[in-house]
């Protein structure tokens, strides 16, 4: 049999081979891109929010307020890293306070998680982007564990409480999550962004000019005292209580945080975000952040920034913490979704336009 000038009787093995090569390549590409198969990818974490979310808003921690300030280095970290930001006296900072709820319309008393994101741009143009929470460590050793925890702690529709068997199965798989869940249950509710400590959680390396690598984790230690809500105060707190409070404080004086770096000792778990290092480890104060002014998150200067914590300046390196890497992918998809909505004119209040009602 012939098709055109191709003799099928003679050429069928060659044709089958070509078909197989093309099919394998196409299938491998489809699998790699997540179109084929059911595995957990960066998109899994965003659920339906890529398509179904208030247009233009960040897909997690959607409610926030941006700030402007300055980072003043102490020079101490320059011994461990040749990044300019640790050597130059002052670096401009753009950042954002946010709350842990997903929805941009959430009430400020809906979550005990408060966060700070920040971008420092050194004089040589090198950027350092950060994302920090008021929690010193991550619940699980990897990102799929976080999905498992969400599932295991979700209320069972029939009882209104988490299913105890599911919870037990999760804790057997991720025993490290127990200490997080116990701490979370008694965690005080910060009544101000100003007094909260913000932890970067993931470890990074400081790279010195002479090639030395020092693993470290940092957090932002507030100069203001920590204040917490009682249960009654929290129940009675207004919808935007935290954001109003930080704005009021800044009309009186700027707010400060020290960037404290905790240096790992040999053998400390660098790549596991669920394992904090002993408190006795050496600490270095890299400098002080001064937050001077807050402004609305509809302003593009901050709205259009992806605070991706894997974007670090020369003089620093990422650890192999898997959650840090997953974060980068999730943030990229969130950024793509919302920048498309903003860019194609679909966003309204996220860009400061009044919603047509």
């Amino acid at each position, binding site marked *: 049999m012939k098709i055109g000038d191709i003799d099928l009787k003679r050429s069928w093995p060659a044709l089958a081979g*070509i078909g197989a090569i093309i099919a394998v390549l196409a299938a491998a590409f489809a699998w790699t*891109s997540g179109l084929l198969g059911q595995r957990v990818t960066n998109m899994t974490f965003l659920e339906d929010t890529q398509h179904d979310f208030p247009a233009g808003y960040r897909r997690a921690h959607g409610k926030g307020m941006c700030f402007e300030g300055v980072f003043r280095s102490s020079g101490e970290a320059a011994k461990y890293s040749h990044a300019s930001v640790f050597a130059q006296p002052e670096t401009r900072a753009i950042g954002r306070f946010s709350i842990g709820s997903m929805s941009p319309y959430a009430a400020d008393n809906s979550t005990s998680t408060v966060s700070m994101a920040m971008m420092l741009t050194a004089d040589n143009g090198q950027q350092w982007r950060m994302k920090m929470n008021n929690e010193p460590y991550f619940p699980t050793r990897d990102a799929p564990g976080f999905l498992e925890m969400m599932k295991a702690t979700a209320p069972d529709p029939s009882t209104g409480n988490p299913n105890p068997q599911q919870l037990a199965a999760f804790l057997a798989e991720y025993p490290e999550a127990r200490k997080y869940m116990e701490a979370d249950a008694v965690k005080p509710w910060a009544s101000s962004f100003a007094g909260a400590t913000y932890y970067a959680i993931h470890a990074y390396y400081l790279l010195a000019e002479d090639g030395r690598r020092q693993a470290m984790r940092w957090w932002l230690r507030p100069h203001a005292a920590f204040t917490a809500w009682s249960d009654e105060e929290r129940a009675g707190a207004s919808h935007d209580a935290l954001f109003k409070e930080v704005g009021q404080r800044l009309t009186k004086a700027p707010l400060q945080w020290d960037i404290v770096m905790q240096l790992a000792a040999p053998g400390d778990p660098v790549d596991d975000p669920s394992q904090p290092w002993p408190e006795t480890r050496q600490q270095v104060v890299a400098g002080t952040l001064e937050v001077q002014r807050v402004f609305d998150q509809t302003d593009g200067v901050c709205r259009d920034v*992806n605070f991706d914590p894997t974007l670090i300046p020369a003089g620093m*390196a990422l650890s192999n913490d898997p959650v840090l*890497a997953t974060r980068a992918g999730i943030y*990229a998809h969130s950024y793509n979704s919302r920048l498309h909505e903003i860019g194609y004119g679909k966003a309204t209040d996220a860009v400061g336009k009044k919603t047509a009602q």
Partner: protein
Amino acid sequence: MTTETRTVTKTSQANEAGQPERFNLLARLLHWTMAAAIIAMLFIGVAMMTSLTWRPELLDLHQPLGIAILLLAIVRLVNRLRHGAPALPADIPRWQVISAKASHWVLYALMFSLPLLGWGVRSAGGWPVTMLPGVTLPPIAPTHPVWYAVLRDAHGLLAWLLFAVVLMHLCAALMHAWVRRDGVFSTMTPGGLYHRYRRNRK
């Protein structure tokens, strides 16, 4: 089956119309180097949008590799314009000749546009285009959501188009090599394979 009408001499590698008998060494080197780089690049590109653990490393690779492909594409285009391409066998149907030529120029267009679009995406998103730690390229597009949305869409869609055209190209090349056996494939292979093919045809 095709009969070989072209002659091979040691001194001349061109036929009467001035077309080369086969692609020159530079073209062949660039073709196979870039084939590997482009296929790797396509897989890196989609993997860095899904991988739970490798995104930072893949992104570190994606940027310099993209710029390397752009630079190699310039050398390749100059070489192609100066030295041309071998003629296809006379018995190949017209539609195949047209689609072969069109797909080659589509491949050239994508080899240039995808790296430039990627550079533009990074620029429009306000990110540095990092070649090595501390070595960055200047932005080539304004940092703006409209630019970001359009460039990012174009980069993604054209990457899928490139993958489709690469598969078609590969399919056609293997049809020439294994089914038609008309010498087209060996115009791009290393010299040894080419001469062995010629001997076998005699």
